[in-house]
């Protein structure tokens, strides 16, 4: 059951969106988030919607996958909506008991909710179309210049890769330990929160001990395979910018330029 959880909901494909340099995709997502906060009217949202639909179409990711990303965050969206609706002062529209909804409040609420929805859809498109490996590769390359101020870019990327590699292994192990403890009468499913938390101890202790052992063995195996940090290291699949990447960068610069400038006209 635990095996079904996938971290990084990558949707494999061979489209232009998938093939784009991960660095370009990460930067676009980054600028996309920033420009969302520049928008202060409704009509630029049409542009954003158009952009997201185009990317979905190009990447051939089923629409429901993109929508699934919204599900875990639906409460945040709803709460934001209501807080904005009730807390903004202005011309009264209607009231329910002590709570009043103003015209400005309703406007603000819809505006904020849309912003959040687009934000989540945009970022989940990044993880849907970029494999974890190229994502970490991209992050490593992007952080490289920060090495000057002492940021361990390679080490961070290596940590992410190992974490990704071991998530399924550890989930499997959790499942195994859980069953072993259940066979000996452990109870993970009843009682109040405090009791349940207490009952997790016999699960967490072996899991932690085993993780340390794994870490030790992995470190040894990595050393045996000549791992000595990021220096002088080459890559099997070196990421490099193509013509298409530059074309996309140009188009996106213009697009985001227009999007941001709508704030000032």
């Amino acid at each position, binding site marked *: 059951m635990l095996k079904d959880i996938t971290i990084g909901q990558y949707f494999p494909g061979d489209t232009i969106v998938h093939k784009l340099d991960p660095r370009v995709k990460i930067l676009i997502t980054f600028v996309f988030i920033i420009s969302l906060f520049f928008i202060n009217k409704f009509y630029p949202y049409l542009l954003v919607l158009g952009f997201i639909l185009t990317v979905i179409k190009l990447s051939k990711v089923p629409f429901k996958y993109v929508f699934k990303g919204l599900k875990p965050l639906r409460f945040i969206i709803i709460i934001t909506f209501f807080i904005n609706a009730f807390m903004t002062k202005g011309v009264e529209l209607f009231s329910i008991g002590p709570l009043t909804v103003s015209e400005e409040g309703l406007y603000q609420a819809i505006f904020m909710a849309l912003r959040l929805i687009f934000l989540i859809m945009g970022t989940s498109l990044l993880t849907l179309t970029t494999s974890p490996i190229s994502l970490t590769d991209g992050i490593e390359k992007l952080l490289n210049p920060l090495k000057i101020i002492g940021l361990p870019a390679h080490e961070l990327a290596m940590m992410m890769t190992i974490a990704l*590699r071991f998530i399924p292994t550890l989930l499997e192990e959790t499942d195994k330990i859980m069953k072993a403890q259940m066979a000996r009468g452990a109870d993970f499913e009843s009682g109040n929160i405090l009791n349940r938390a207490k009952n997790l101890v016999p699960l967490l202790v072996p899991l932690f001990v085993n993780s340390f052992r794994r870490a030790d*063995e992995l470190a*040894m195996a990595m050393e045996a*395979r000549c791992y000595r940090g990021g220096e002088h*290291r*080459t*890559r*099997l699949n070196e990421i490099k910018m193509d013509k298409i990447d530059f074309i996309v960068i140009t188009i996106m610069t213009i697009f985001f330029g227009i999007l941001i400038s709508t704030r000032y006209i």
Partner: protein
Amino acid sequence: MSNTMINIENLTYKYSTIDEKSFTALKNVNLTVDSGEFLVILGHNGSGKSTLAKLMNALLLPTSGNVFVNGMDTKDEEKLWDIRQTAGMVFQNPDNQLVATIVEEDVAFGPENQGVDPREIRKRVDKSLEIVEMSEYKNHAPHLLSGGQKQRIAIAGVLAMNPKCIILDEPTAMLDPIGRKEVMKTIKKLNKEENKTIVHITHYMEEAVEADRIVVMEKGEIVMQGTPKEVFSKVKEMKEIGLDVPQVTELAYELRKEGIDLPTDILTVEELVMAL
């Protein structure tokens, strides 16, 4: 090139524990491994065989005595990476030695660390995966493979570093019988077809039968060595140190005790059938 791949002289290794006591894992071990040899080290838990393997790869350094890998002293820090490249190492737990989330990326890990040119890495990765017969899985995630397959990926990862010698530290201990067979087949192939020197550490007697030479370890010392036929013919001595001999050999031994005239060096079913 010299004919000796690994040369161990008067090697002693002590583990120090927290309360300042030390535990001697290896006592005065002398051993040479020839180029192209298929050597099996037998011994049960705590006999020091895993420690010996780590000393051959400079993961541990001798307390006293010397270990030379292809003429390089493991104490020489400048030669450290050359030694690890010459003598690749495969560990027991297949899960804990795979680094990357995709098979071919993992095989590439070794040569990437060595700073090999990407095109050359590609060639080595493809070739290594072909040798271990895992080419069709190169884009799979390792956690979806079986134990035997994972272990073969680990072997491919070592192979991609172009080692002259491969040390396998109980690579079959955590596998099911099918996985064990696959891995043994691969190891034999490496020795016969790729001319790699193999140091195979195990406690399965059946795996030792096809070795060129067997070294038996007990309490940190080498107690017996010789060809499989020589070692396994000493059924009584093997039993005394708590080790088994292959089932067929034991059967022949028991039959001989009952007065049936059989040679002492029977290792396979065919040999026994022929002798009877």
